[in-house]
């Protein structure tokens, strides 16, 4: 009950007129930042951090976290409209979101994405409010072996749940692993696969790969198909929001499952990216309409968006209570906390009650504010697709190039982005799935790092992955997910056999 009293006090802090103003400003800036690929939440928060030094820490963190929420909402916009995910966790949103836009249902897709984000975030905030101390203790159980098992589960659920031929999926994934290996090997401190060049030092950044593979690849495909967007009929009807809302409660099961996956991934802290992929993969298997996934199924937008936001929100908890940032954006926020003289750690909740509960209360309010802001703009965003391709394509190209350049301030990255664009086009033409490759680029180096850390600790014995109940059960889940299609086939064979006897 003490939590509730604290929360109410937090609301009184967050609802001060100045803080509400700061919230609106933050959300609008965040959406703008999210729309520009490359200029993701982390950069946006970093650029605006100095602006907040004159505010009180509570107002400052409210503004910065609102930029973060805004960027999360904004990331879905480009994924759906142009197939360009601005952040790693919006990749899975493109799978069904963009086909929906191509069918002229951009408004529905955007509404579903924004609403699901809101639901996911809300679920995570309620969880933070109620069981924050338990959650912090759970996060401590994750050593390298447990971390690896989570990544393992993400990869397996993707291979096992995918509808593409498994060998094409695995081939694409391994290309991704190879690309993720370029740069510094963090275990030995040596450079790998750089061929002595200085430009490859930094490895392949995920954003550049994704902007190229998805964004540029999509433009190349559109050019081939006659220089026009297939979403041209998108309506400007404001009623679309209400119509979509009427449809959404049908997917309550997917939504709840995605919330749970998201919260778990956010706390562990594996982050929002595996959460969104895992949730999409499982939804595809579990749904009755699973065969339509990838062709513009609204459930395929709901699943990843809900999980990503539940994870993104619950990831703030390990950051506040343990000082470990779950994402680059969280890392910048963490730096901000230290600059304002707040020490993230177990005692933050005890010593800085006003700040912590003000922040949690602001999460409730700012998500509502964010939802209102983005939903009112849905018809506007959807209308972007009515602009002729010959005008919008060059604009997208320029924005993509700026985005790729911003990542490292390097012109080489723009060339790299174009190369990835051609790779993406060729892969699509040959029916190789892009998603497993992207997943491997994003998580490959982290998975490898945790695998090798585990083996260092166990002195080479693989037993460490079965050494306790937690890691063992996650690994077992992973194996089940991987071999699910085989189980399915066996099951199908056994049943007629039994019927015959």
């Amino acid at each position, binding site marked *: 009950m003490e939590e509730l009293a604290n929360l109410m006090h937090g609301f009184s802090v967050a609802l001060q007129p100045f803080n509400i103003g700061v919230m609106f400003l933050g959300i609008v800036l965040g959406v703008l930042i999210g729309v520009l690929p490359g200029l993701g939440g982390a950069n946006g928060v970093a650029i605006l951090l100095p602006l907040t030094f004159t505010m009180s820490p509570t107002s400052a963190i409210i503004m910065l976290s609102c930029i973060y929420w805004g960027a999360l909402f904004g990331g879905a916009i480009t994924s759906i409209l142009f197939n360009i995910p601005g952040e790693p966790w919006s990749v899975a949103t493109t799978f069904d979101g963009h086909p929906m836009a191509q069918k002229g249902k951009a408004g529905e897709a955007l509404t579903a994405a924004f609403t699901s984000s809101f639901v996911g975030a809300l679920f995570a905030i309620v969880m933070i409010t109620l069981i924050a101390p338990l959650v912090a203790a759970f996060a401590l159980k994750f050593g390298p072996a447990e971390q690896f098992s989570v990544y393992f589960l993400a990869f397996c659920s993707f291979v096992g749940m995918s509808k593409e031929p498994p060998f094409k999926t695995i081939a694409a994934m391994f290309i991704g692993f190879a690309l993720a290996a370029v740069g510094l090997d963090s275990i030995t401190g040596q450079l790998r696969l750089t061929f002595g060049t200085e430009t490859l030092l930094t490895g392949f950044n995920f954003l550049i790969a994704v902007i190229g593979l998805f964004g540029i690849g999509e433009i190349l495909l559109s050019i081939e198909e006659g220089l026009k967007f297939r979403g041209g009929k998108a309506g400007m009807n404001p009623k679309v929001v209400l119509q979509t809302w009427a449809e959404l409660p049908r997917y309550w099961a997917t939504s709840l499952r995605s919330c749970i996956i998201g919260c778990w991934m956010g706390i562990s802290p594996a982050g929002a990216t595996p959460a969104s992929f895992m949730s999409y993969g499982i939804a595809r298997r579990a749904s009755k309409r699973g065969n339509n996934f990838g062709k513009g199924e609204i459930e395929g937008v709901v699943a990843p968006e809900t999980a990503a936001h539940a994870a993104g929100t619950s990831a703030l908890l390990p950051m506040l209570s343990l000082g470990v940032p779950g994402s680059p954006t969280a890392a910048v926020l963490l730096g901000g906390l230290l600059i304002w003289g707040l020490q993230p750690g177990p005692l933050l909740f005890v010593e800085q009650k006003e700040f912590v509960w003000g922040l949690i209360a602001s999460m409730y309010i700012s998500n509502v504010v964010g939802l209102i802001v983005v939903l009112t703009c849905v018809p506007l965003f959807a209308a972007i697709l009515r602009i002729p391709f010959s005008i919008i394509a060059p604009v997208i190209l320029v924005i993509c190039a700026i985005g790729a350049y911003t990542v490292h301030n390097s012109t080489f990255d723009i060339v790299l982005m174009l190369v990835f664009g051609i790779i993406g086009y060729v892969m699509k033409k040959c029916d190789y799935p892009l998603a497993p490759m992207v997943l491997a680029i994003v998580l490959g180096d982290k998975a490898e790092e945790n695998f090798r*850390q585990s083996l260092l600790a166990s002195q080479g014995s693989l037993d460490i992955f079965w050494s306790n109940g937690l890691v063992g059960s996650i690994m077992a889940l992973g194996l089940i997910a991987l071999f699910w299609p085989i189980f399915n086939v066996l099951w199908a064979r056994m049943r007629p056999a039994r019927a015959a006897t």
Partner: protein
Amino acid sequence: MMKSITKGVLGAAAVVCAAQLTPAQAWEPTRPVEFIIPAGPGGGADIMARTVQGIVTKHSLMKQPMVVINKAGGAGGEGFLDVKNSRNNPHKIVITLSNLFTTPLATGIPFSWKDLTPVAMLALDEFVLWVNAEKPYKTAKDYIEAAKKANGTYKMGGTGSKQEDQIITEAIQKQSGAKFIYIPQRGGGAVAVQLVGNHVDSTVNNPNEAVAHWRAGKLRPLCVFDAKPMPYKDVIAEGKSWGDIPVCKAQGLDIEYLMLRGIFMTPGANKAQVDYYIGLFQKVRQTDEWKKLMADGAFNQTFMTGPDYVKWVATEEKRHHDLMKDAGFLATK
């Protein structure tokens, strides 16, 4: 007509040249200044650089804005190469950590501090030996004895590979004869949490990376790798201050290691430009925000410029080379 224009241009050019030739007594930035961090967001160098940016902005210490840019690729090699390749651009400065020495030595990435123009040492970061508070070890001696008996199964967590934390671990092994399994992690905060979760047996975290867990009663500091105890007397946890942590030398570990938090400029910078930045950082050091950062992180507040600084850096590079050679960490050419 054409001739007079040419003449005018030539005249203007001559004036510009003259202005550059005369020793500009008071140089000032005319464009935004890029502050490069050769490390990722959220780490010690990042927090320090962003605090400086905040102080400069808040107190209007510079007429032009200061922009902080992370270039962490290749263990910081990306950032250092960027500065090295920006000869004669006085609008770019870089904050260093030990990777100024360790990255070129361990990876062979072609740069050295001699490529850059030294400006000032801002502070030195301390290293402390930490264990989980649930464990019975009260002194570094107890812990090292236990590690010896464990026959090389104790795990030391640290930031990065072949960087400062692993160099200290090597030095401990050499001094004491105890063997550790070194497990590299990505950032100091993650290292401390692995220790709280009992996934490793000890760490050599910087004070500010572990202080929150110390205050919460989860971690225990055993000794500090410095010549004398830290000067901070405010009580932090269990009735102890930073100043109460004994030096490792008194515990039989004769190891001193401090990490440089210093500023360098691009190659070819002149004295007026270096002096400008020295003046700027002296002003930063006077602010309350800076003093708080120093006290919170229990920094060693040595400030050096000019020949003293160059000499210090040269000695440290030699020392890193020797330590890393002994440990077999040097890049094979």
